[in-house]
């Protein structure tokens, strides 16, 4: 096989892996949007915040240490213990559930039946608040996150492809784990929404609030639940991005790549988020590889958005979104 084709294949595979991460972030958006019609701009920051919290707990960091030290003139930063990854993950999930409850209690409870644009503005506010809060709570330096996932080149793939094509593919073990975790996460979400009482209630709320109330579903409970699940998805995305490139504040910007993913896949479709993520991931890597050199590179910054724009023109509801029909 010619080298060019092999390179392109490798690029495509890496694109798929990157796409999985985009899909993970997009999934969090879809969950909340479906259940409450809120486009949650803060989803990316939630990924950042959960990753920060996870690292903080694992390292035994004292939360708000800067604040405490400034007020009391002390000099404490660490508790001096280390928490195992699994325990820290469970604690972080608890923090995200508390966060979901607070968001519902303090913000969205009071905004029921408001215009979507108002809800959207509220999530923008929430995003910047949470970013600042995360900074205050855990500090702003870049942190290394290692929850014990395998890292580095996958030797087996490298060797096998080398023997087959005379060229070894470079695939990161971390990307492979991310893919596996994502598959389990999505399977879990599907089982949850199809086979549990809460999942059925969630679908009911997504469909019709009034009807949901009449069969005894508490909207508040469902919204806390869905924000908790979105928080959990954010944590998974945060772990994967964090392990890849360190936990840093640019994480919340990367998350905005989920926007074109959603335009492509449809805002209300879980399969759409996944397929959209993969298309964007592969598309931008391949485009950079094939066309990038001709236009001076750095196409990854804008390619996804342009692709989404083209899609918007021809299929405004996205690949899997519900078709918008206005009856006259």
């Amino acid at each position, binding site marked *: 096989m010619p080298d060019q084709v092999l390179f392109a294949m490798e690029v495509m595979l890496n694109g798929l892996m990157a796409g999985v991460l985009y899909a993970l972030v997009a999934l969090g958006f879809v969950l909340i949007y479906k259940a409450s019609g809120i486009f949650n701009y803060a989803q990316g920051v939630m990924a950042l915040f959960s990753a920060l919290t996870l690292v903080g707990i694992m390292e035994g960091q004292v939360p708000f240490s800067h604040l405490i030290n400034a007020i009391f003139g002390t000099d404490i930063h660490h508790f001096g213990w280390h928490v195992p990854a699994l325990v820290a993950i469970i604690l972080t999930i608890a923090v995200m559930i508390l966060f979901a409850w607070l968001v519902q209690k303090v913000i969205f409870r009071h905004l029921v039946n408001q215009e979507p644009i108002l809800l959207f503005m509220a999530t923008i506010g929430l995003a910047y608040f949470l970013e600042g809060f995360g900074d205050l709570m855990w500090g702003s330096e870049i942190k290394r996150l290692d929850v014990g996932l395998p890292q580095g080149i996958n030797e087996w793939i490298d060797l096998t492809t080398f023997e087959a094509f005379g060229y070894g593919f470079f695939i990161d073990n971390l990307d492979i784990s991310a893919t596996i975790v994502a598959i389990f996460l999505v399977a879990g979400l599907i089982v949850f929404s199809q086979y549990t*009482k809460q999942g*059925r209630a969630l*679908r009911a709320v997504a469909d019709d609030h009034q*009807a*949901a109330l*009449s*069969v*005894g579903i508490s909207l508040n409970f469902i919204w806390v639940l869905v924000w908790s699940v979105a928080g959990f998805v954010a944590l998974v995305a945060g772990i994967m991005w964090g392990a890849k490139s360190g936990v840093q504040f640019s994480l919340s910007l990367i998350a905005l790549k989920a926007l074109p993913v959603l335009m492509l896949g449809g805002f209300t479709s879980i399969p759409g988020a996944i397929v959209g993520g993969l298309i964007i991931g592969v598309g931008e890597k391949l485009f950079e590889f094939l066309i990038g050199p001709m236009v001076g590179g750095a196409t990854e910054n804008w390619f996804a958005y342009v692709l989404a724009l083209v899609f918007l023109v021809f299929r405004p509801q996205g690949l899997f979104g519900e078709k918008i029909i206005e009856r006259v």
Partner: protein
Amino acid sequence: MNDMSQGNYTTADGRKIGNTLMEMKNITLRFGGVVAIKDISFDIHEGEIRAIIGPNGAGKSSMLNVVSGFYHPQEGEVWFRGEKRPPMKPYEVARLGIARTFQNIALFEGMSVLDNIMTGRLNHMKSSMFSQMLWKGKAEREEVENREVVEKVIDFLEIQAIRKTPVGRLPYGLKKRVELARALAAEPKLLLLDEPMAGMNVEEKEDMSRFILDVNDEFGTTIALIEHDMGVVMDLSDRVVVMDYGKKIGDGTPDEVRNNQDVIDAYLGVSHD
């Protein structure tokens, strides 16, 4: 001769009517300066079909919304099963065993008929989320039991043929029936029907009337219904409350109500002065 207004009697067609299930005491509901319901009291006996009728804008739907917790009256008390009910959210009322349908149909359009009706069983499911995800033991038994109830309701309302159809694709008359099925699946102690025949043709109205009677007869479900169309109601109900301009102008058996001068005036449109 039993006094029907006190409950505890057997109807001419052999149905047993029990004690008071629900009592509304001096309910007044205002929206800003507008008085939707003015000092209305009435009761509902166990096992009866109770109708609330009145011309457009009489406050019937508001009354039903008070019973189901969607509106909260400024004055008055709601008693249910011998206890005064504190102000409750609609979902809490539903959990008490009061199911309802809506005048303009509130179904889950994107879900199948079966899934819609299954939502009526949500409050009968007790097993934990994780055992349901793993489909184990208690969760599986529960799912099977709930499915049995739902299948019974589906058979009863003769909607077997459309059980897998997404509700959004159904014609209006069938949607109304699915909504009734969902409410029935909850095995409610009190079933509230908000204009169950609205917008139906004669044949559909007859079907619906038959289902309402059969539900009451077969399951002994207490039913309170609102209707605009006086004719249908008179054949269906044991007792009727008549409302006009937010006030109660009549209460009694269909015959009593039919001969009530205020009711005749309200329906024939005598000027209010």
